């Protein structure tokens, strides 16, 4: 086991996949000479050259579309958006082209590309730069959406995403890039897409969480919950949001009968709302209490740090939510 940062894990995944397959290239703003706005592509241009690591102009709609077009003719592009706030400009390409070409052509073409970058809050970046937008992609049939929460998940799933024949939206987090954790040192560490992971085993309540919220809100709450409050917590991290491993969640709820969901995005019609609906629809009789869902407060993100901290789910919020579904005061 190596202990590396989330950033290093992504960097390793990119290095390994680009070495393995010469059809893989990386394109995005500042990915080359600048080594990436968040240094995820550190050293890649030095190793693979300008031919395979391409600094693009600021033109999200069209460089994402360029990646999709290259994928349609058999290449395996990794297109980096500096943040998913900017990827909104390229939604037409992802929704109308990447997601649909295979279907509209009756199976003649595929789109093996990866759209990746940070999603969600970065800390004091204010309204236009702090949005968690996974819901835009999870909604669309034809896309796959992955949101890793640890360096190990990031490495194994990015490698899988690059090898996947379908368009994959791979959503990271600026706040996770420095987070260090263990990553297996296998020569070729690849994780399956569409399989959830039990981050922490328990028996009294199921917490479903993904992305940054695992380390930001849920993990720090565990000590207090399992110690002071005496509640045994099981944490299920879907890792892939589409296709969702609902069975893993239901299996846990069948054991615990109580569920809390913690997500970073806004509450209305979010991915978490869909997951909760599915658990209610298919596991109604398994539940002993209504599901507690923690999301961002339903406002644009303000600049002031104290307000931002209040808006994003915190470990204290998680403790209260768990106590609530356990009917504890």
């Amino acid at each position: 086991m190596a202990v590396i940062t989330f950033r290093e894990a992504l960097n390793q995944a990119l290095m390994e996949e680009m070495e393995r397959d010469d059809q893989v290239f990386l394109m995005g703003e500042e990915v080359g000479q600048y080594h990436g706005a968040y240094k995820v592509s550190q050293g890649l241009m030095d190793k693979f050259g300008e031919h395979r690591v391409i600094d693009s102009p600021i033109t999200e709609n069209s460089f994402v579309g360029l990646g999709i077009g290259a994928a349609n003719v058999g290449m395996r592009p990794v297109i980096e958006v500096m943040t998913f706030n900017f990827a909104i400009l390229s939604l037409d390409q992802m929704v109308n082209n990447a997601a649909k070409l295979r279907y509209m052509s009756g199976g003649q073409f595929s789109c093996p590309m990866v759209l990746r970058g940070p999603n969600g809050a970065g800390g004091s970046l204010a309204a236009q730069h702090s949005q968690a937008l996974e819901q835009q992609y999870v909604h669309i049939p034809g896309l796959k959406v992955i949101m890793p929460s640890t360096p190990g998940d990031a490495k194994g799933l990015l490698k899988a995403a690059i090898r996947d024949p379908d368009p994959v939206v791979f959503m990271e987090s600026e706040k996770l890039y420095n987070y260090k954790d263990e990553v297996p040192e296998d020569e070729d560490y690849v994780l399956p897409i569409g399989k959830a992971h039990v981050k922490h085993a328990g028996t009294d309540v199921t917490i479903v969480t993904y992305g940054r919220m695992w380390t930001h809100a849920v993990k720090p709450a565990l000590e207090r919950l399992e110690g002071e409050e005496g509640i045994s917590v099981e944490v299920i991290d879907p890792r892939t949001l589409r296709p969702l491993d609902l069975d893993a969640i239901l299996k846990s709820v069948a054991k615990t009968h109580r569920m809390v969901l913690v997500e970073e995005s806004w509450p209305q019609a979010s991915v978490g709302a869909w997951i909760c609906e599915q658990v209610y629809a298919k596991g109604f009789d398994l539940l002993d209490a209504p599901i507690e869902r923690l999301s961002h407060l339903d406002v644009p993100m303000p600049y002031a740090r104290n307000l931002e901290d209040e808006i994003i789910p915190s470990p204290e919020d998680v403790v209260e939510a768990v106590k609530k579904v356990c009917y504890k005061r």
Partner: protein
Amino acid sequence: MSSTKESAKRSSRTAELPLPEEKLKEMHRQMLMIRRFEEKVGQQYQLKSFSGFCHLYIGQEAVLIGVTHAQEIGKDYVFTTYRNHGHALVFGIPPKEIMAELFMKADGSSKGKGGSMHFYDGKQHYMGGNGIVGGHIPLATGAAFASKYRKEGAVAICYMGDAAVNQGTFHESLNMAGLWKLPAVYIAENNIYGMGTAVSRACAEPELYKRTEGAYRIPGIRVNGMDALEVYEASKKALERARSGGGPVFLEMVCYRYRGHSMSDPATTYRTKDEVSEWQMKDPIERLRGQFPDLFPEDYVKNLDKEIKAEVEDAIQFAKDAPFPEQSEIWTHVYADYPGYPGPEVNPNKYAFDYAKFK
């Protein structure tokens, strides 16, 4: 009609033909095929054999035929708009499969799942029929990128309408193509109108060919889109330049669509019948015949027309007889790899929970 023939007449003697006789005859046959096919498609639409959107290519045939004869079919990547029935025919999709697709049948080229705007042929590198105005321009740019990356020697040919030249994707794509000298030829079929809005009412600079040199260092050339040979000659030069690393080219093909924007557009509110008649005097098929009268004697044309019309009738009958797609086709081709993607027996809201699974 005679003025066209007189002024455009070229020598019909074999030694002086600009292209081999078979090629000229093939160009004529293909244009006539598109014409007759589209006329029948329009008729079938009015007879309610199918519905939805239907954009006819009548009048613009010379653009497609001129470019296609200049390109390397099966190697070069071709992207176009929703006005793509002609492209489907020219890139080898059998007429009966095209008709069946329009009629929403399982034997259609996209298995009934694409429709009028979404024809494709992977083998011929015909990358489709796209519904979003300008949405395919980055895709074509990506194919050009791939061709350069892999040293394929292929050119990406990107057709679009006059109105698409105002889309952000046009400017973003041409900027990258010009910057990286991608092997791409961008072709605007300027039929004067973007749906019902004339170019002069939509473009600050309505002379489209002028818009690329200054901004992207991409040469812009205006071509008479009603003359298949002029289109051929201009395309040949453009493709050569793009293919040899000289960078992309933008061609503005001035042409005209005789019918409305789509079958829902009678085209009476924004243009006059006189204007349509004026352009019909420049008909591309008549023009080619007039340029080489010895190659296209009356009885040859009459017989060919009869053959083509019969083929189109066969296609209609085939489409009428073909079955609609199976219900199971709803769930196929959503992904290339997603074993267990919900099939017809598992609808998310009707999924019965199997408690036994989790004991």
